[in-house]
């Protein structure tokens, strides 16, 4: 199954070290291959260091693409986390 959704980063500091860790914690608990795409740059969303290099600040538009049996579940879990602002401002 292939799932692709667009989302806007809404926390003040964007995807810095802590949010990268939180995202990777979720993506690594799922089996699906998952990537984030921003401004043509595609990164592996299981990797903290790759998430960091996406340099996704506040208001950045991201495409999340997952492929696998639990693609829908992992994309929804990541969106929920982004919408929670990673527990930040």
């Amino acid at each position, binding site marked *: 199954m292939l799932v692709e959704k667009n989302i806007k980063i809404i926390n003040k*500091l*964007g995807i*810095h*070290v*802590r949010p*990268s*860790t939180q995202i*990777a914690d979720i993506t690594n608990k799922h089996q699906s291959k998952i990537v984030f795409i921003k401004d043509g*740059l595609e990164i*592996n969303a*299981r*990797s*903290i*260091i*790759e998430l*960091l*290099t996406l*340099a996704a*600040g506040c208001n950045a538009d991201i495409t999340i693409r997952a492929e696998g049996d639990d693609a829908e579940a992992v994309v929804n879990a990541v969106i929920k986390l982004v919408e929670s602002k990673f527990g930040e401002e």
Partner: protein
Amino acid sequence: MEIKKGIGVSPGIGIARAFVLDSEKYRIPLRYVNEKDIKNEIERFEEAVRNATKELENIRKRFLRRFRDDATPIVEGHIKMLQDEHLKTQILEFVKNNKYSPEYAVSRVFRRYVKTLSGSNDPLFTNRIQDINDIERRLLKNLL
């Protein structure tokens, strides 16, 4: 003994292991490993990751004992980055496929991340280059 001259920034005498602030400017020379040594080189890299992680765990414990715990998420982030399987895979692919020394493979992979972050217009992210440099330096210190 080596004597270094510089500008004093505070009064008094300090005796401790020197910490070189600008070490991220170093360049690791390209060195190849023999096919028969690849297994040992991979183990050497894995050991460097384990040792670097232990160092950070100790720093985290010290922070928790001596300071507020505000700084520990940064150290925890560094520990998790060291454990990043994707990062390890990229480094080890260079060792296995290109026969690069682990030092050079680490340097190549981290240089690419720094280059990607340098292209950001957001200072919040260009500042993160320091985090990337810190992790690279700690890994290399345990390899060299």
